[in-house]
């Protein structure tokens, strides 16, 4: 039981190919800065954000981000190692401390994050959707209307910061009327139970919800946010390789196939 599902990490891989265990501890920085052909990079994500990353029936990691990053890295000189899974808020620490080389986790490119990591070109654009329960009579049509109700969001997400910046900080919404959750599934559970009146969440995820729970999108709030793959600061080899790979999969139709697979039906 000691062996976990994480698979062979880069460090184990190094040891297997003969590097000493000391190299396993210390050689990791050289690993990501080397830029040699076929170099293995460790991807990381935070499962639980369908359709971008989730687990399938066999407990395997799947999703748009997972397939897209695989396709993109396929077009580069790098090879993709085993995925590491973290809480969303642990992803940037994982990059900064060399536990991962690239993050694909529906991560919005923001100035704050850009200060500690580097991003690829945007690979997806999203807005925030406002979900309400089908059984309720709360029908907000713009952000200001949310001030009349109780609002929920997943902590650390753009949805949460929209509510904080637009409503709570201005004094329109009392802090006590804003609940954050560890998982947006719990936020929607509270919405269905009537404990909150609206939930703010990224549009593609909201649509997945509207399809399988008694909730619907009442309006969207345009943030024009862009998701990017995050890499370690200064890892420009990987960054530009990902940009080139991204351009290639957009041109050859792979990108379109993946969006069709994950975002329709």
């Amino acid at each position: 039981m000691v062996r976990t599902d994480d698979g062979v990490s880069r460090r184990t891989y190094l040891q297997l190919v003969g590097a000493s265990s000391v190299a396993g501890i210390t050689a990791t920085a050289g690993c990501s800065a080397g830029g040699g052909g076929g170099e293995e990079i460790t991807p990381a994500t935070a499962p639980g954000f369908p359709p971008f990353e989730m687990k399938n029936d066999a407990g395997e990691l799947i999703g748009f981000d997972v397939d897209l990053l695989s396709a993109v890295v396929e077009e580069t000189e790098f090879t993709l190692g085993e995925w590491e899974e973290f809480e969303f808020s642990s992803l940037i620490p994982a990059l900064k401390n060399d536990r991962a080389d690239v993050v694909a986790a529906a991560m919005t490119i923001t100035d704050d994050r850009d200060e500690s990591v580097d991003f690829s070109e945007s690979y997806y654009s999203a807005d925030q959707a406002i979900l309400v329960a089908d059984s309720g009579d709360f029908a907000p049509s713009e952000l200001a209307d949310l001030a009349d109700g109780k609002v929920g969001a997943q902590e650390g997400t753009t949805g949460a910061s929209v509510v904080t910046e637009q409503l709570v900080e201005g004094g329109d919404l009392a802090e006590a009327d804003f609940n954050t959750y560890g998982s947006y599934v719990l936020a929607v559970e509270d919405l269905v139970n009537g404990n909150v009146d609206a939930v703010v969440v990224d549009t593609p995820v909201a649509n997945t919800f509207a399809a399988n729970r008694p909730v619907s999108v009442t309006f969207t709030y345009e943030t024009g946010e862009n998701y990017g793959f995050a890499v370690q600061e200064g890892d420009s080899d990987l960054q530009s390789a990902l940009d080139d790979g991204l351009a290639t999969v957009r041109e050859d139709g792979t990108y379109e196939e993946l969006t069709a697979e994950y975002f329709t039906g």
Partner: protein
Amino acid sequence: MPLVDPAAASQLGAVVSQVPSLPLQASPDDWAFVWENRDYLLSGAGLTVALTVVSLLVGFLAGFPAGVVEAYGEGALRSLVAGAGVALRGTPIVVLLIVAFFVLPTPDLRLLGLEVSGGFVAGVLGLGLRSAAYQAQIFRGALRSVDDGQLEAARAVGLGRIEAIRRVAVPQALRRSVPGFQNEVTIVLKDTSVVFAIGLSELLTRSYDLFVRQTTAVLEVILFASLIYFVLTFSTNRALDYAESYFAIPEGNA
């Protein structure tokens, strides 16, 4: 002959799942989903147990001597041990884990033919050291509960100070520390869920994976996971109850 007509039962299931407004209701479909994924949850529970056992062991190996030092030691060593304990008890477990995993950083190991991931090592380090700090207090309290007169008596019959502690105080203190240790076992067991932050998928992480897949099954998945935690805590507590009475200090009217 089935007790309930299956067709009627599935119809009932359909009707129940169409009623959206009842809060936190359990639907048969969602229970079926939990049952289908029992192996997935149970292997997560396996990791939970492994983390708990190894962390408690690390906690005991470091915490017991620390408790002895805090109870009977003096000078710089005692201050050092007590200070480390205060720091470990005063730090949130998630911070300890993140330091162990991201700052140290713990390497992957091969032990006795088993591959142990760096995450597991960090998890054991964080949970184990924190547990050591708590266990030290459990043992310190138990040691202090042994009357000083007994140690004086031991010295009077010719035992050295260390010998007196080892042969007179420790055997009694270990027996008296069982109830406190029981608490610590259940606390460590449930705190293993924090290792999600460093990428280990134990029981609670796997529960999250499941209800993200079937978002109507939140209550069912959480109840099932709670049941597993309950079985684990209940059985270890009963085992320790038994150990306590088996090793109890014999008393006159027993």
